[in-house]
């Protein structure tokens, strides 16, 4: 009963946030890119995870939009964004974003993301450090830590229960049930398959970028690393590895939290990012 109430409450917040984000489609050299945006101030770019959560203006985006000009683009190949045929590697994603920022006239941005989005943010920051004012990365793959393999998402992707166990600290909690429903409709299944297809293209042969570790030293801005203390897909050891390679980076663990802090520990997560980006 309580779980149902919590689910309904989140649903109501999503509904109330809706008016805050506006959808726009921009063309980035032939890649039709859908993005949601809201708020004013410094451009604050949120790069989504493989869930493709930026297809809707979620409460955490709404909260940030009170302090920043938030833009939440869908990566090429996700949702209604095109351009998948131009994407082969994670580097192509970084180049997509530099061209998008050029198109939007952004000299410098606050850049961050969760999981895949965090990895793209890191790949961007090592190439164009002068264009990142603040960088935050949450629960991101991209590196390799010996003896700490990443969870095998592709093995269990068709099993909702195992997926919840891999991605959430509390797989029985209301957010786990909301984010990974038991019987998704056809549209959601298609979207999920499409998202995993993009991920597969980027990580299938090798789930990290062997060049990244030695390039992270080029990052020149303040960097916050946020990690779910109980992330089973990309364990906190990966946060430690990013910290080791990025000069001056701070690592903050979020307790009782799995791979998706924006859903499982929204308040702590949003506050930590906001505080870091405002300072």
């Amino acid at each position, binding site marked *: 009963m309580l779980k149902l109430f919590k689910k309904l409450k989140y649903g109501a917040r999503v509904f109330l946030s809706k008016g805050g984000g506006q959808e726009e489609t921009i063309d980035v050299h032939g890649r039709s890119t859908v993005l949601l945006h809201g708020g004013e101030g410094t451009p604050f770019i949120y790069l989504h995870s493989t869930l493709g959560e930026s297809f809707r203006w979620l409460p955490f985006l709404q909260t940030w939009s009170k302090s920043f000009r938030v833009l939440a683009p869908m990566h090429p190949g996700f949702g209604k964004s095109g351009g998948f045929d131009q994407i082969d590697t994670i580097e192509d994603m970084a180049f997509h974003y530099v061209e998008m920022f050029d198109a939007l006239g952004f000299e410098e941005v606050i850049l961050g993301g969760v999981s895949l989005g965090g990895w793209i943010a890191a790949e961007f920051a090592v190439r164009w450090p002068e264009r990142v004012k603040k960088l935050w990365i949450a629960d991101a793959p991209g590196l390799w830590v010996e003896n700490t393999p990443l969870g095998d998402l592709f093995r269990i992707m068709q099993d909702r229960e195992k997926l919840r166990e891999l991605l959430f600290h509390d797989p029985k909690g209301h957010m786990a049930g909301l984010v990974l429903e038991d019987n998704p409709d056809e549209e959601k*299944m*298609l979207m999920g*398959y*499409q998202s*995993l*297809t993009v*991920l*597969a*293209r980027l990580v*299938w042969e090798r789930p990290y970028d062997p060049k990244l570790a030695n390039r992270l030293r080029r990052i020149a801005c303040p960097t916050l690393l946020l990690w779910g203390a109980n992330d089973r897909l990309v364990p906190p050891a990966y946060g430690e590895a990013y910290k080791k390679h990025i000069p001056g980076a701070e690592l903050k663990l979020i307790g009782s939290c799995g791979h998706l802090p924006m859903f499982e520990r929204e308040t702590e997560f949003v506050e930590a990012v906001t505080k870091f980006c405002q300072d």
Partner: protein
Amino acid sequence: MRYYFFHLMPWPYLPADFDTVYDSAWIWLPNSLYDPVRGQELYQEYINTLAYADELGFDGICVNEHHQNAYGLMPSPNVIAGALTQRTKKAKIAVIGNALPLYNPPLRVAEEFAMLDVLSGGRLIAGMVIGGGPEYFTYQVNPTHAREKFREALDLILKAWTEPGPFLWNSKHYHFRYVNPWPRPLQKPHPPIWIPGVGSLETIEFVAQRRYAYMGIPYFHIDVFRRVFAQFREACEKAGYTARPEQMGWGVPIYVAETDRQAREEFEPQLWYFVKNLLKGIGISPPGYTSARSALAIIKNHKYFLYTQKTWDDIEKGVYAIVGSPETVRQKLEQYQKELGIGVVLTGCQTGALPHELARKSMELLAREVLPKTRGIKQQEAAAVR
């Protein structure tokens, strides 16, 4: 009508509690369950069986490629085919096939198939496949490139066989400064190309356009084959010609014994071993291996796949296998051959842990008492029924 004898070379010694302990017979099934001592004996027996099919007068024998699994023990079907070139005299040797995107470089396939064609005196049928979903986990080849790589590799191999080398090749996934394989195949212009398929319209249309042969992979409901061959004929018409029966092959296990009852008693436990154990996990499909729409269609069509069948009645009604006395099998073969309009039947009886002597007995009854009567079904007659 041509009959090809098909062998998967399954592992028959899985533990009795396999189904409750293991979630798959593929990819991560511990290879400690494989016993090389028993394995040697098994390979020998399976090769003997295939050589026997040649003696019995089957038109061809078939082997295929799978990796890291108990379902089929031929990670390299070309090795087995090489042995068969020395053990057989008349039968075509159909390798159906080599999974092209798994070969780097794919010129390896051009070379090995050419070797087999020369070694066998021009008896090779060159099967080209994308490879099953599990193989993309095993070989870690990017599934989102599978179809592109398949088409590029196929074009490269055909060019390597038909145009004088050396030449330069450049495509999205492959670049070679000198394409110049030795040896070249014996058959001209090249060995026949067979493409096995599970019913996607994309593959059907591709095979029809290229005028290759489409081999319907077994383990689907007869309605699936009805649709597939109707679509194939239509695709050929669209491409400007009428499909030839030998362009269409139907894969179906056949088991023959003295009576219907005996056939079922001998075969049924083996079929369930196959369904419950060996098919477990075969359907894992990495993202991007098909389009999102096709992936959804596959999920919806699960009920037409052998793995989801529960009773013998399901098997009989869906014609997942043809099992019975010589007369029963003859009648059914005649009925479906005419109805489907096909010119090739690919059949195997070794679906599970079938004792070797029963496998041989079934082959003999099929070859001696059934096929002489069903071979004569005229292809024109078959074509007219559609």
